């Protein structure tokens, strides 16, 4: 006699499954709503209008630049936070993570009073003839501000779990610190770095509040795709929806890249960090928050 294939016992109560379905709907329904509302006949012209292409190009360029900046600054920061030992280390870690929970518009105001004309560094920057606020540089800075914690958190977890055993062995084999960093530490944290970078890129791409406050909304200079969508919504809802769908598509691609692919980043993690286990990543918002 053949027994029917059954699921192993899970112990999940029925009402929990019901709430889980509801939770999934909260996320999925709005996405379906957007797809349903798209004006497919005019979709191509809508997303290839001059202002749309300007915004998309600017978004991709600035997000790439801020991701690069996040990597260049975030790797050393994560390394120092995870491995270093200095006073106020815990305080610094908490402060670095602040942009994760801070409303972006507050971040924008903070940046304005740092780099703006009347800001903390404004005078010094003016002497040097540098004007940051309301420029493309400001967009990149705003995006870096909100995206940096994603990278630092991803990496710090990877560094902590990995421990320093490999580094110690490398040193006893005669490798100076620079070589250890390049040939041992960096390759070991690469999966964490990749997922952190993808999340940072996604967060940068979706950045709205801090950008609007600190960089303004100038077509081709500071008006990124989220800003363009917000503007178009007033005058041309069809264009706004079409561009939103573009961002949704990018977000889906990012999530797939970071988590979904079998044998992708998620699978590599445990193998690389040995038996101790889990890959540390932030359960962050991939598409970014619009506030």
């Amino acid at each position: 006699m053949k027994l029917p294939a059954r699921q192993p016992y899970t112990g999940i109560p029925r009402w929990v499954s019901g709430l889980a379905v509801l939770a999934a709907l909260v996320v999925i329904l709005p996405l379906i709503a957007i797809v349903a509302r798209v004006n497919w006949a005019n979709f191509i012209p809508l997303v290839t209008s001059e202002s749309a292409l300007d915004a998309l190009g600017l978004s991709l360029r600035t997000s790439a630049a801020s991701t690069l900046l996040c990597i260049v600054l975030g790797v050393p920061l994560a390394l120092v936070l995870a491995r270093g030992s200095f006073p106020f280390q815990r305080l610094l870690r908490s402060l670095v993570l602040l942009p994760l929970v801070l409303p972006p518009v507050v971040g924008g105001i903070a940046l304005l009073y740092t780099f703006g004309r009347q800001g903390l560094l404004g005078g010094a920057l003016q002497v040097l003839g540098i004007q940051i606020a309301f420029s493309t540089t400001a967009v990149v800075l705003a995006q870096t501000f909100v995206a940096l914690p994603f990278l630092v958190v991803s990496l710090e977890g990877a560094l902590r779990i990995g421990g320093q055993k490999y580094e110690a062995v490398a040193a006893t084999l005669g490798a100076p610190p620079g070589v250890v960093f390049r040939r041992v530490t960096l390759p070991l944290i690469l999966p964490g770095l990749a997922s952190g970078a993808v999340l940072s890129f996604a967060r940068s791409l979706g950045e709205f509040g801090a950008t609007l406050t600190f960089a303004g909304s100038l077509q081709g200079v500071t008006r990124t795709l989220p800003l363009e969508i917000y503007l178009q919504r007033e005058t041309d809802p069809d264009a706004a929806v079409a561009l939103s769908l573009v961002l949704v598509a990018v977000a889906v691609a990012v999530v797939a890249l970071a988590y979904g692919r079998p044998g992708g980043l998620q699978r590599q993690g445990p193998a690389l960090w040995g038996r101790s286990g889990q890959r540390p990543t932030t359960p962050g918002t991939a598409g970014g928050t619009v506030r």
Partner: protein
Amino acid sequence: MSFSFQAAVAQRDFDVSLALGPTETVAVMGPNGAGKSTLLSTIAGLVWPDSGRAELNGRTLFHLESGIHQWTPPHRRGTALLAQEPLLFPHLTAVDNVAFGPRSAGVPPRKAKEHALQWLAEVEAEVLAGRRPAGLSGGQAQRVAVARALAADPGLLLLDEPMAALDIHSAPLLRRLLKRVLAGRQAIIVTHDVLDALMLADRVVVLENGRIAEDGPTRDVLERPRSPFAAGLAGLNFVTGTLTASGLRTAGGQGIAPNLEIAGHLEGPGESGPAGAAGLPGAAVFPPSAVSVFLADAHGSPRNSFSVEVTELEPHGDQVRVRGGGLAADITPAASAELGLAPGMRAHFVIKSAAVSIYAT
């Protein structure tokens, strides 16, 4: 071409002084927390001692005293460390792992690889050259790790329980390999296994509580242990006390009554003779097979009879090992059944004096 070391680490209550000859391999043994890992880490430069001085082949590893502050970072010490886990770099193939040391020393990639392949051949692992560590068994990975450590051409090789994580089939293979490659090298091997000390080391150092408790040629330490730990390694009973003209008067403690006499061979220091050593602290050492167990105190010489409480019974080969009063006795299962021994019972351990060695400690 030699190694000298003296260091204190107050936080870990560690104060050890050690020297190695040019081609000497020393086994460091001791209970957990005795400071064995601290010793290796301090030599490798992963732990800073509070004070001390170490030199390897004429190079100062550290010299820390009031007013003097010399410190060589780990990568310039030439003290490769082989740990319990192989710790092969997971992103590099076996051959690239082995080439890591030469590459770090500035050898061009192609030459470093040739060198690495030679070392892999030396540890009989050349077929594994292209494999990643994830695809290696524990024994294979540890062999590659040995090749990696040797390829770095260390002046002193540090081995931290290299066999501990291996299964019973891989350990003998690696032990044979180490015996071959350690010949003619300076090495310090931390181990729990007396077999490692016998096969690999010229000398045994026993660490206890951050101090050296015993130091001598492997054979001497195992034949004439001077510490309870070394006696345990050699599988011998060890009773301390004071030497008398004909034997040893027990010091008491550890479940044995004080002021009992144990008769045996007196092995005194050469010049003064056994009799001249009377009054000195000494030890009586005898194998568990020299101990018989009786329920009543009616047998043998009363001098060599101890009343003890039986604490444990365990199988030991084809014998039963009876523990009590800090001593071990090996008896046949039939004898054990006949006596009806059980933990908590009182029994008499009677020691054959012909099998007892007594010497000053």
